[in-house]
């Protein structure tokens, strides 16, 4: 079940990408219809004939045949750009041209170009992410809506707007474009948001969330494979995702309950992901750019390489958070810094740090802000105040998992 589901996700992205390079980005709806149709037909056949050995190749082949069929019957070629249209209109060149579009090599390049097309800085970040999820990752509108706790209609409108903006350019983003560097930062940001939504997000469905993390890592992997975009920042972003993903299985336990870092069984962290993450972080350490991803990856690496909470290098963490606050000031980063300060210098100093957070009022609705206050008040010996903060945190919980965890903390305060 799982295998086929991921299969559609990946293949639909690839099919839509190959087809929309052929038909033009303004015909993306047609490309999506074809992908959906190919998949539904495959399911009808597999129902009786069983799933073939290489379903992915099977889907690609039938998408290709369907494209040839459409080009022959519907005379779509006439509407395409003249140069390509001629190749696709002539029976002599039709099949070889379509074959080229569906070759493994071009699909890989095109997938990357499609990600860059979706992450157009002209459209807002949330729309970039939704568009990428929809086109490149094959998520349905409802899945995206449930991942981001938004109404289906909101996401629908957002994607529609994004597609209109995509259609303006007709062609996929050209990696030789002078805008590549700007786009690359937008792509990094979108992948980062995608991963974060999976890792910290508010959706209660664990399956959706680990899927988001997996997709973010897959997209990161595509960037690593292309020398034009495998910059130190790309390495840093991937290091950050790999190191966090290593802890994912213990962060949410088998019952889907939230387990804080302190209580996680570190022996169940994925050692191979940690090793790969550390390696990526090493490779990120060249060139002049020190990005927020470098710092976040370094922070994750400190945690991943510590045997337990006591042996964690809190001084280094405070130092890293200090730099992160400078590069990307945000109340959430400052909150995390304050927690590290508390570990290093005691709860009173941590509470001071929390109180001096700039724009701290933005955290008013963030349940883990109240929870952090509760935690530190408790450690400082103020049970009454701690309980009040936990009470507030429970009221702000965004889903069942968070609520259960916070209630547990509240009840632990006696």
């Amino acid at each position: 079940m799982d295998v086929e589901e991921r299969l559609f996700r990946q293949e639909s992205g690839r099919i839509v990408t190959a087809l929309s390079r052929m038909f033009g980005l303004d015909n993306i709806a047609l490309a999506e219809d074809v992908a959906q149709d190919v998949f539904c037909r495959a399911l009808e056949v597999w129902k009786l004939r069983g799933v073939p050995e290489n379903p992915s190749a099977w889907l690609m082949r039938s998408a290709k045949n369907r494209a040839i069929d459409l080009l022959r019957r519907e005379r779509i070629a006439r509407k395409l750009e003249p140069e390509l249209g001629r190749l696709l209109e002539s029976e002599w060149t039709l099949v070889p041209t379509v074959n080229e579009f569906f070759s493994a090599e071009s699909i890989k390049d095109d997938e990357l170009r499609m990600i860059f097309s979706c992450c157009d800085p002209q459209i807002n970040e949330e729309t970039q992410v939704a568009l990428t999820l929809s086109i490149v990752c094959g998520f349905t509108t409802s899945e995206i809506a449930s991942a981001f706790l938004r109404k289906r209609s909101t996401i629908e409108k957002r994607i529609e707007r994004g597609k209109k903006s995509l259609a303006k350019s007709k062609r996929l983003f050209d990696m030789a474009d002078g805008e590549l560097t700007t786009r690359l930062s937008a792509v990094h940001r979108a992948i980062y948001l995608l991963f974060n939504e999976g890792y910290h997000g508010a959706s209660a469905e664990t399956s959706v969330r680990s899927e988001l993390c997996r997709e973010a890592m897959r997209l990161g992997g595509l960037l690593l494979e292309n020398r034009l975009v495998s910059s130190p920042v790309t390495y840093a972003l991937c290091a950050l995702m790999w190191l966090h993903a290593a802890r994912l299985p213990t962060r949410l336990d088998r019952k889907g309950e939230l387990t804080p870092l302190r209580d996680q069984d570190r022996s169940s962290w994925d050692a191979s992901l940690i090793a790969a993450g550390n390696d990526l972080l090493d490779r990120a350490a060249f060139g002049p750019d020190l990005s927020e991803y470098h710092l976040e990856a370094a922070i994750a690496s400190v945690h991943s390489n510590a045997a337990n909470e006591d042996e964690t290098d809190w001084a280094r963490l405070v130092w890293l958070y200090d730099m992160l606050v400078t590069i990307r000031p945000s109340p959430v980063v400052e909150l995390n810094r304050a927690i590290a300060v508390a570990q290093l210098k005691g709860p009173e100093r941590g509470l001071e740090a929390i109180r001096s957070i700039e724009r701290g009022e933005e955290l008013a609705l963030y349940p883990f802000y109240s929870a952090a206050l509760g935690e530190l008040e408790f450690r400082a010996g103020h049970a009454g105040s701690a309980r009040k903060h936990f009470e507030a945190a429970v009221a702000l919980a965004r889903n069942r998992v968070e609520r259960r965890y916070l209630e547990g903390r509240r009840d632990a305060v006696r």
Partner: protein
Amino acid sequence: MSEFVYLYRGGRRAETPAEGEVVMQRWVGWLQDLASKGHVKDQGQPLEAEGKVVRGRTVTDGPYPESKDIVGGYTLIEAKDLAQAAELAGGCPIHDFGGLVEVRPVMKM
């Protein structure tokens, strides 16, 4: 053992790929189970919904009179008798999607 044809008639199509996958897996599971018990002679083929109807010299396109009756596929089954063949058809996932299985004995000479 006698041979029977299962004709799968009607049944709504899945609405999303995700639902389709679940349905597909159930079919695969059901047929695998039948095959492991030696009941599947030929797993058969799915059929396109569209086609032509030929009556004498008149050839017309579908649609057929009742779309719910369209044969969507067939399987060749081996069973002890019609009763057993009918009983085995009861497990087909098509029943949950508004379709039916027509069980027809292959004529013996």
